[in-house]
């Protein structure tokens, strides 16, 4: 149904040298070209835009993560530094004696709790690792830390900030310890315990998109604060511990289950902590993914529209070219046909000219013999000789009639508008085909109504029209068929001529193709142009042609011509 007319078109022209178009090729090339030049830039731009946007969004996410990590690190770092400085101040502001006074230490604890959040207890440990004085909720006085790791570290480094650990009291906490050397060379360690709730809250309250997670780990990868997805406190995280870097870094990685992640981290200086922010890439990119879907949809719809428009415009144009070309070829054929007809006419006329003079001589000589015989008494009653001469004369007369008709026909070949006696025109044409009708015993019945006046029209075209129609009718009929040509007046202004045969007829399915160029039921015998040309000629002389047909019963062509009688009146 959608297949265009030109698609199955095959060149039926016998002249292979004649330049013809390959419509299918033209169509394919045009579609490819138009679709190519419109789709390639569109797809390229979309792809480039896609990549650029993806990259910029990715780097934007990286930057944002880095900023978040930096800011959070600053808060945590500040939290620790602040508390360390406070302890430093206490140690420097108080003498060893006042610090070891339990009442004073309790007062200090009370004050520092009010000034800074997070402090749980304070203690003074003298050399040997024994806790001499303690202020806080637990009873830890006299406890010996000399074997503990942190104690060794504080002795070495002077200041120590611990990992989060449970210690004796089974609650996660952090220890800050400061070693103070007394003027006499001896030393003590001032120790404070911090609640980890503080930075748990800090990390917990960070606003993060994409199932983000922020937590602290130590250098061994043990979680220092609870995380949402990577384990509880003191568990080892499922991610590898990122390598040391002096600044904030953001990298892409994959989780245990292969989920792409964006990991930002920062080693917090002067502490055993590493701050980590982990986001799920997919979640973060979600808005962009939505935009991408819109983009892809837009691309798909654009491509569809471009293809539809390209296909329909190309099909339309190629169809037009096909139509124009068909007309061109038809005109060529018509010219050829007319030329051939004209030259046959000229040839026939030439032959008729040449034959006429000898015929005239035979005519006169035979006539003279007859005259002489009639005068001379001796032959007057010789019926046989008179009969012979009469038959010579009648044969000459017959030959003369034929040459006269031929000359008459040829003379009118090229003439345009003139006065037409319809009956005579049709009779002339029938005169040529009469012999064929006789041989094939086809009965021809011509009836032209008497009330049809003389009218003006193109005699040559009318002759060609009738010649074509009668020829077709003969071709459709078997021997012994009937051809009826009936002409009558219609509405005073028109004459209607029906040419009916009782031949093979045209099946319903082919009827609409009859006037199409190059359609022929005569296989190789016809050009398929006869009726096309007839149709065109009828229109050229202002008439109409219609077709009725019953397959197997016969065909009737009806021609309606206007009666132009103007010229006739003057």
């Amino acid at each position, binding site marked *: 149904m959608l297949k265009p007319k030109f698609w199955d078109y095959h060149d039926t022209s016998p002249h292979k040298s004649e330049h013809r178009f390959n419509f299918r090729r033209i169509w394919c090339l045009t579609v490819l070209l138009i679709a190519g030049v419109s789709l390639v830039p569109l797809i390229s731009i979309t792809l480039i835009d896609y990549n650029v946007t993806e990259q910029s969004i990715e780097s934007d996410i990286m930057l944002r993560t880095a900023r978040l990590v930096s800011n959070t690190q600053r808060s945590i770092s500040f939290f620790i530094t602040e508390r360390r400085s406070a302890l430093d101040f206490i140690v420097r502001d108080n003498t060893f004696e006042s610090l070891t006074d339990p009442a004073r230490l309790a007062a200090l604890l009370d004050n520092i709790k009010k000034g800074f959040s997070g402090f749980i207890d304070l203690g003074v440990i003298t050399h040997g690792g024994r806790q001499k004085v303690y202020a806080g909720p637990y009873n830890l006085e006299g406890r010996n830390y000399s074997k503990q790791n942190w104690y060794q570290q504080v002795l070495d480094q002077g200041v120590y900030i611990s990992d989060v650990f449970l210690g004796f009291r089974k609650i996660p906490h952090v220890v800050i310890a400061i070693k103070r050397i007394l003027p006499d060379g001896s030393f003590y360690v001032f120790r404070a315990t911090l609640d980890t709730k503080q930075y748990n809250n800090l990390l917990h309250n960070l606003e993060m998109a994409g199932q983000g997670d922020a937590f602290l780990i130590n250098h061994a990868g043990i979680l220092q604060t609870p995380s949402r997805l990577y384990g509880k406190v003191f568990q080892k995280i499922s991610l590898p511990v990122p390598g040391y870097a002096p600044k904030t870094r953001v990298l892409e990685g994959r989780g245990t289950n292969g989920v792409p992640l964006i990991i930002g981290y920062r080693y917090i200086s002067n502490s055993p902590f590493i701050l980590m922010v982990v986001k799920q890439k997919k979640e973060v990119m979600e808005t962009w993914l939505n935009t991408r879907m819109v983009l892809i949809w837009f691309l798909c719809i654009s491509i569809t529209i471009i293809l539809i428009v390209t296909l329909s415009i190309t099909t339309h144009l190629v169809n037009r070219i096909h139509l124009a070309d068909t007309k061109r070829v038809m005109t060529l054929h018509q010219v050829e046909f007319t030329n051939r007809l004209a030259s046959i006419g000229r040839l026939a006329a030439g032959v008729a000219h040449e034959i006429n003079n000898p015929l005239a*001589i035979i005519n006169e000589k035979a006539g003279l013999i007859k005259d002489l015989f009639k005068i001379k008494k001796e032959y007057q009653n010789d019926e046989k000789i008179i009969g012979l001469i009469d038959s010579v004369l009648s044969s000459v007369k017959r030959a003369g009639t034929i040459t006269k008709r031929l000359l008459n026909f040829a003379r009118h070949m090229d003439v345009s508008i003139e006065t037409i006696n319809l009956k005579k025109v049709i009779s002339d044409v029938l005169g040529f085909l009469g012999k064929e009708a006789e041989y094939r015993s086809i009965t021809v019945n011509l009836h032209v109504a008497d009330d049809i006046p003389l009218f003006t029209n193109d005699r040559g075209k009318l002759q060609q029209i009738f010649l074509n129609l009668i020829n077709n009718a003969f071709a459709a009929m078997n021997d012994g068929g009937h051809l009826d040509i009936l002409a009558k007046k219609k509405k005073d202004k028109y004459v209607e001529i029906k040419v009916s045969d009782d031949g093979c007829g045209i099946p319903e399915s082919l009827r609409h193709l009859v006037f199409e160029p190059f359609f022929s039921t005569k296989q190789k015998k016809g050009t398929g142009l006869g009726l096309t040309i007839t149709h065109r000629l009828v229109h050229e002389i202002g008439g109409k042609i219609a077709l009725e047909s019953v397959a197997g019963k016969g065909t009737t062509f009806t021609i309606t011509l206007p009666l132009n009688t103007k010229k006739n009146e003057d």
Partner: protein
Amino acid sequence: MKILLVDDEEELVSALAERLGIRGIDAEWVISGEEALLRVKDGKFDLAVLDVKLPKLGGRKLKKILQEKCPDMKYIFMTGHGSEDDFQSISNEVGKEYYLFKPVDIDDLIKKIKEALHSH
């Protein structure tokens, strides 16, 4: 009634003249236009039957010259050729009915001759 027949086919024109003679019509014949002009000088003809295609001096030209010499003469044309130009101009000059196609039936010819002579 005296008639001049002009046709380059001697066989034709001589037989035709004889046949007309048998039917009581006094007909003379010549086979060229020049000869026809000479013949017109000494005898008066009522009518001339001219072939359209004559060598050198054609039928139409001949008729023009003859018309000047003998204004009362009538003309019938006879032709084996059917050129459209000839047909149109001769039909205009002498009328369609006096333009006969060869071969011509003798009775038709006599009928036309009589019509032509009695037409005025």
